[in-house]
């Protein structure tokens, strides 16, 4: 008897849980979807109540972001700044990070573990606490409003992550592989580049992409260390509210443009996202 009453109950429960799963997904995605929808509406439609769900999309908000007659027409220039700052700092942190990670995973160091943990701990430093001294340093070096003023701190913040992440990938490659190549007459350098690097290529790519995302999204340092020439995209997006009243169309268009590449990348490195965000402690 138990079985016959339990079965329909079970399937009802299952349907309920399925619906719950979809509900959670909708709550998670709706704000993003609504932002994208608003960005392709005319400003009239965007503020219409009841909210308009079906409409002819327009790119006018995007056009005005890039046209110079609009107050915010510098957006293209700022996107270029963002791309430049994010990619240079990513390249540096992956390069320096890979060198350090290789050293830590292959050679014995006196207190090597302390060193590794110290590198990791720099990640926990609150950026708001480093903001003031970094500003003073950049000011003293006369670097305010240059790309370097942003590239250097971004490299540092991503570096601890890159070292820790890549160390994990290097440690998964058995040292015998390199050693046997070296016995066959390869130098260590060429053994690393021919054997190890290709094997950890996915890890390198994932690390680079996650670094890229962090630098791309960064706001606080950009706000303080840039004035005019080196301003990145997130800084101006904020000014749609504070300076020009609220231009929802352009604001959502700018937000969409900033978020779109990150979301594409996130899906690309989905396997490593959680591992990266937990510093490799959850795989």
């Amino acid at each position, binding site marked *: 008897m138990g079985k016959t009453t339990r079965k329909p109950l079970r399937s009802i429960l299952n349907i309920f849980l399925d619906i719950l*799963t979809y509900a959670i997904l909708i709550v998670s995605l709706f704000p993003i979807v609504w932002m994208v929808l608003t960005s392709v509406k005319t400003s009239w439609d965007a503020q219409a109540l009841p909210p308009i769900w079906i409409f002819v999309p327009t790119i006018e908000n995007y056009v005005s972001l890039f046209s110079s007659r609009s107050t915010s027409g510098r957006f293209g220039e700022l996107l270029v700044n963002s791309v430049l700052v994010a990619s240079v700092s990513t390249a540096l942190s992956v390069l320096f990070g890979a060198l350090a990670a290789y050293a830590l995973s292959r050679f014995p160091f006196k207190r090597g573990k302390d060193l590794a943990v110290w590198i990791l701990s720099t990640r926990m430093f609150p950026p708001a606490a480093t903001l003031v001294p970094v500003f003073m340093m950049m000011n003293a070096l006369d670097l305010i409003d240059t790309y370097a003023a942003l590239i250097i701190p971004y490299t540092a913040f991503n570096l601890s992550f890159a070292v820790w992440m890549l160390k994990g990938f290097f440690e998964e490659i058995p040292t015998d592989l390199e050693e046997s190549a070296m016995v066959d007459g390869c130098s260590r350098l060429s053994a690393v580049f021919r054997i190890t690097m290709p094997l950890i290529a996915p890890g390198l790519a994932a690390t680079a992409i996650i670094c890229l995302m962090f630098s791309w999204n960064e706001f606080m340092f950009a706000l303080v260390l840039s004035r005019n020439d080196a301003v990145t995209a997130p800084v101006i997006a904020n000014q749609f509210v504070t300076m020009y009243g609220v231009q929802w169309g352009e604001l959502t268009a700018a937000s969409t443009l900033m*978020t779109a590449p990150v979301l594409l990348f996130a899906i690309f490195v989905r396997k490593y996202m959680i591992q990266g965000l937990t510093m490799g402690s959850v795989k």
Partner: protein
Amino acid sequence: MKTKYALLAPALTVLVFMTVVPFFFSLATSLTDYKATEPDRWRFVGFANFYRALTDRDVLTSLWNTVLYVGSAVTLEFFLGMAVALLFSRNMRGIRTIRILLLLPMMTTPVAVGLMWRWLLNTDFGIVNYYLNTWLGMNGPNWLGDESLAMPVVVLVDVWQWTPFMALALLAGLQSLPEEPFEAAKIDGASSWQTFRHVTLPQLRSVILVVWLIRMIDAFKSFDVVWTLTNGGPGLRTELFSLRIYRVAFKYWETGYASALSWIFLIIILLVASQFIRFLYRETAK
């Protein structure tokens, strides 16, 4: 064997230059009344800045706000995240795609998150208040302008953005558990609650610890979402410690005082982070 130091050198140089050096720099300035706008006029004031911080009502308010914000957001995220992890560990059609889509909120540019929610919660044109009114007949409140609602809203936006992280990390933990204990529990006739309580939870302990600590450290650091969402308002209702430091340093230009606040912030974070670091020490020892 000099190569191994050469390999470490670039990374260590950047890190020391951007973490250790600035902090010693700011330790020095925290003992003065230095203002970046008047760089030539400053004097040594000893620990006056630290003493001032302990009696500064605005600073104490921001500290309390931060504790409230971190505590409530991370607790909510954990319990919701655990529920979502269990829900998402079921077999259902399309669940893999759904799990991937759940990554999106946490990867959305923080500035965009703040602006997006301002738009959703807008009193005049916001979609949330519109449907509250038409579906439930409620007059939607002024979410971000109301003194008692602003902080809960800021917390909920954080919950929206970071519960997926908790859920996916816990899910990864759940999926890495060995199967035998679960089979044994089944044979012993344990109920699902008993299995969860006595088999799943104990094995998830370290993952749970890690996600709590990481979320706490990150929530302490929050700046951009709150900045764009409320900018600390109304009044000082959502002013977090990080926003306070920014304001003292770059609006009032009291650089010396801001340096002292930076140090206080650093010490608080290190208290939390040291737990995490200790944990990682144990893990790497294995």
